[in-house]
Structure formats: C-alpha cells, structure tokens
C-alpha cells in the first residue's frame, strides 16, 4: 500500500462502535422533572403562562399537603390501591395462566387465540355498565373491570414470550428425559419471564387508566373520584394534585417491576 513516491498520511481510526446500549441514569429523570416544574413555576409567576392554562406547581404542592394533613389523602388512596391491587392481581395471574396454556397446548391455542384477538381491541371502559349490571355498583364491578383490562394484554405478552423460548433448550430438556412438568417450570417459565415481565409493565399501566375510569363513573372515594370532583369545579390545583398522584403511582409500579426484573433476570446482563 505505502509507496515511497507518495507522502503517506497518518490518522487515527475513528471510534464508531458506540451507542445502542442505553443505561438508565436515574438522576437524569429527576433533573428533567425539576426543569419542567421550574419552568412552569417561573412562567406562571412571571405571567407568560396564564393561571387559567396551568396551576402553579407550588400551589399544587400546597394542595397536596392540605390533602395529606386533612387525612383525605388516605381516604382516597387506600380504596384506589386496593382496587388496583385486587383487580390487577386477578387479571394478570389469570392472564399468565391462560397465556401459558396457549403457549403449550394446541387445543388452547386454537380455541382461545381468536377469542383473545376479538376482545383485545374492545375499550374495556365501554363495558363498565355491563359489569355494573353483572356485579353491582360496588367494588366487585371495579375489580372485574381492572382484571379484565389487564387480562388480555398479559395473555398476549405471555404466549408470545412462551413462543419465543429457545426451542433448542426444550429439546435439550427432552433429550435428558426431564418430565413435562420440569420442562415447563425449569425451562419454559424462566425463559419466558423477560417477556412476561415486560408485558406486565404495560398491563399495569392499563390497570391504572382503568382504575381512574371506573372511579370516575361511580365511586365516592378514590383518586379518580377526587379528580372528577376537582374537574367539575374547575379547581385546577386539585385536578393536578390528583394527576400527580397518579403519575407517582405509575412510576412506583414501574419501579417495582424494575426491581423484580433485577432480582429474577440478573442472569441476563
């Protein structure tokens, strides 16, 4: 290549192998939140954001403190958390079971996949009146709505995850004469776990949305009822307090799943 008649140039080869490996930098999220809130706070104080557009973050915070001190916070939060917990547990555990059945048995796959495909796109909120007729106006209908709403995405995520389990590992299990039960519990389930957990993230977000919807349609207490009341009075501080509580709820749920993932899937990284 190098020829004595030419001047050879030297140059370091540029690094081009970076990226595509996002790491979560926890503090970055807080910084972003902080800047957004600071921006709104300054905007509303200086006046380039009118008070009718957005409430002041500091006022929202005061409202939140009042809610806390009056004890009303827990009166709204506890029923909401209970509904979320009961509904989502029923829905996602049934969903995982049905998803595994679909992933393992032709009979279940043939019969249930079309049914799931048919009910997946139904906006579950539209069914709330039906659930009220079936289960009554009290808690049961709310549990049912949330359970139903988390059920379908969990099923789809689970059987997709089971389908994606490395067949060669299953074949390995068979070649060592492992029992059917062992193959399912020691190979299929752990192999499907990453997919199941990421499905659960989506299902639980849906559960929070449905929780609020159900509470808006008929509940005395609950975050949804609180937001609805604030909205009908055009009390933006309260409205945003409610919304902030929901966001915090969402972040906590996602963080919990993240912790579970770190525990169960530490073999991945």
């Amino acid at each position, binding site marked *: 290549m190098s020829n004595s008649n030419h001047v050879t140039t030297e140059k370091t080869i540029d690094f081009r192998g970076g990226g595509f490996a996002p790491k979560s930098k926890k503090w970055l999220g807080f910084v972003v939140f902080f800047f957004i809130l600071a921006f709104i706070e300054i905007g509303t104080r200086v006046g380039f954001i009118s008070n009718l557009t957005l409430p002041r973050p500091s006022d929202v915070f005061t409202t939140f403190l009042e809610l806390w001190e009056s004890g009303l916070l827990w009166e709204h939060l506890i029923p909401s958390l209970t509904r979320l917990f009961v509904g989502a547990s029923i829905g996602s555990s049934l969903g995982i079971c049905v998803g595994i059945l679909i992933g393992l048995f032709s009979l279940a796959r043939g019969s249930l996949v079309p049914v799931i495909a048919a009910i997946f796109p139904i906006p579950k909120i539209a069914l709330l009146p039906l659930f009220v007729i079936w289960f009554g106006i009290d808690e049961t209908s709310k549990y049912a709505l949330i359970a139903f709403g988390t059920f379908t995405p969990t099923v789809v995520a689970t059987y997709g995850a089971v389908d994606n389990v490395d067949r060669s*590992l299953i074949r*390995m299990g068979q070649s*060592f*004469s492992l029992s059917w039960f062992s193959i399912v519990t020691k190979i299929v389930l752990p192999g499907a776990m990453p997919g199941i957990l990421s499905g659960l993230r989506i299902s639980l977000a849906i559960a929070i949305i449905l929780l609020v919807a159900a509470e808006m349609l008929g509940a005395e207490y609950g975050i949804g009822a609180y937001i609805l009341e604030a909205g009908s009075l055009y009390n933006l501080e309260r409205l945003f307090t409610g919304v902030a509580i929901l966001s915090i709820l969402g972040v906590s749920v996602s963080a919990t799943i993240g912790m579970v993932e770190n525990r169960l899937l530490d073999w991945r990284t």
Partner: protein
Amino acid sequence: MDLRLQGIGHQYGSMEIMQDINLDIPAGKIVCIVGPSGCGKSTLLRIIGGLEKATSGRVIQIGEPPSESINPLTYIFQDFALLPWRTVEGNISLVLEDHGIRGSKANAIITDVLARTKLTDFRKAYPKQLSGGMKQRVAISRALAVKPAVMLMDEPLSALDSQTRELLMDDLINLWTREPFTAVYVTHNLNEAVRLGHSIVVLSRRPGKIREVVDIATPLADRKLGDVELERQQEHLWNLMREEAVEADKELIDV
C-alpha cells in the same frame, strides 16, 4: 448396549431426506458420520436418540444399558444448550434432579464431572461468563453426569476455534481411553472424524444413503498429528465428499 439402525428413511413433507440407512453402533466405539451439508446428519442423530420419528425403519437397542446409566441416550449439542439462568452447577444438577438425584449424591457427581472436564473453578459461574470452549466442556460434563450408554454428538466442536477444538479432541480421547464410551459423532470436519472415529460413515448427498463405511484400526490414543495412515484415510474421505459436492452442484445446474 449396542444400537442398530434398520432401514431408516425419512421425509419432510414430500422431500426425501434419507433412504435405507442400515448401521450398527457397537458398544464402546465411536462412530463418526460425515456427509455434505443438508444430507440429513442432524436428522439422523435426532432419530437415533428418539427426538424425531423416522418415516420408515427403526432404531433397535440390543441389550440393556448399564444399570448405573441415568439417561442412556444423551446428546451433546452444537450450540451447547445451556440454561443461561443457571450456573454451571445448576445446569448439571438440572439433569440429575429429575432422576431423583439431589443433595450430597448430586454434589459428588457434579464435583467428579467438573474435575474430569477441568472446570472445578467455574462451578458457580453463569454460562455468559464462559468462553465457547468452556461452555462446550460444561455441556460435556452435563452429559457425563447422567452416565450415558451412548453419546450422540452433533458437531460438538464446530462452534469453536481450531486450537480449542484440538484441546477438546484430546480431552475426548482421554475420556474415552480412561473409560470407553459409545458415541455417534456427526461432523463436517474430516480431521475430527479420523482422529475420533473407530469407523466413519460417509453419507451421500440428499437423499442421504450410506456411501461407504471406513474403519480405522489405529487406537485412538496413538493417532498423532501427521500420521501417514490417517492422512491417507482423510484424503480418501475428502475425495468421496468432493465427488458428492460436485454431483450436488451438477444437480443444481440441471434444475
């Protein structure tokens, strides 16, 4: 325990993969199977171990496996097939648990097989922490743990670099010399075949038939690099394989 393949033929849909394979696999011998890509070597191995049903013919087991054999027909896979969520130890105990071997008994077996494959220090490591050669040694020790009567190996060394392959071949020869095992060894690599095989079965292009069986009398332990007799055998095998490949190419042109 010997195995006998009797008139094995197989089809996927209307495609004929192999025809009329008759072969004896005597106890304590390593039978290598070579042949052009796609001639059905992996399929044949799956049929021998009962992971696939042949369309015709049958695989017969002659005699009983030794009573201490936990899983008589045991595979070693080309892609290792280790569970990434279990440690080396966990991967081995996986295949023992189901046969009711736990606790100190399992522990003793694991310690023994890891020592035999020189993996003692990696007992608690996860597969992702191991190199390819080490993963394959884990797979070999897992196979040894169930005391197979016949080992079914599908290109076990193909995923490895040539130095690691040499070393692992030596390991296999040592294992065999210390305690002869029966094996069916599928490979692309003719050098592996002449180093490890007591007999070498050459399959023809698809549909696979037995083209020739070459027996090599030299004891495994005496097969050194550059052995004239082995080189001659390897060349003979290579000529057979080349004919098949040329024929296969011609068929492609005719189509």
